[in-house]
């Protein structure tokens, strides 16, 4: 089997000879493993990712263009798997149940103690928002442009997310 090209192996797999896939696995596992190992340190996660790469390739084998080389395609899958892995590991902000942020133009803070984390300007704007004023109304009240109000609110929200 050593002399058989990837193209022939893929043709065989497409013809239902699943055992031929072991040649692909044996040929590329080491390089893929090393590549992922250089980026991640947890052995279990590296193993899982390598597994996912080969499973994804197997699932895509019917659509795979045999004229293209296998290795770059596999590494493209590796990149996608790594992206997904990093995305899944991205830290998420758990907001306390006391605070309730609406992501459009209003912010409602049930417990006012959170206002203490904000600057005077931010506190003023947030308390107006809590009363139900729109950005336009607040900009008139505070005499600041509407876009400034929006950025202050955005900054305040980020601050609250980080603090809480």
């Amino acid at each position, binding site marked *: 089997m050593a002399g058989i090209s990837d193209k022939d192996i893929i043709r065989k797999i497409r*013809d*239902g000879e*699943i*055992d031929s896939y072991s040649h692909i*696995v044996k040929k590329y*596992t*080491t390089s893929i493993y090393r590549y992922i190992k250089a980026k991640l340190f947890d052995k279990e996660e590296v193993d899982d990712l390598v*597994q996912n790469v080969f*499973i994804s390739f197997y699932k895509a084998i019917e659509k795979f263009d045999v004229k293209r080389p296998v290795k770059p395609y596999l590494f493209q899958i590796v990149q996608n798997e790594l992206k997904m892995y990093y995305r899944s590991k991205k830290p998420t902000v758990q907001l306390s149940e006391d605070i309730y942020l609406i992501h459009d133009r209003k912010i409602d803070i049930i417990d006012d103690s959170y206002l203490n984390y904000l600057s005077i300007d931010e506190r003023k704007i947030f308390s107006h928002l809590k009363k139900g004023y729109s950005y336009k109304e607040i900009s008139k009240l505070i005499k600041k442009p509407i876009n400034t109000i929006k950025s202050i609110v955005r900054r305040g929200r980020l601050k609250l997310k980080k603090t809480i």
Partner: protein
Amino acid sequence: MKKLEDKIIKKIYRIETKKTIGQIISEVFLIVLIVFSSMFIFSVIVEILNEQASFDLFDFLRDDFETIKYYFLNNSLLFIQELPLPLIYILIGLLLLLIWLVYLLIKNFNKIKNKLISIYKFWFK
């Protein structure tokens, strides 16, 4: 590394076994279902034609050749008019689907056979 390779191959076989068996079962089930439905619809059509005594239109076939020649076209057209058309359309649709499924099965026969051999070898040898 060998352990990881074996793990990957085992997982691939597990996925493929599920997929292949599921595919075979669903195709066979669909074919059997279509065959039985077609037979049922066919029997209903025959029953309807019997009740209408439509088959009597072909009694002339027992006569001599001249009579057959004379009545064949006319009586055949009458017979077609008496056919329960909605059921006939359903039957034709089912038969076309059956032909398509059998064609797919024949076309993929080698592939499925190879897969089954590989699966058998992996799990039982």
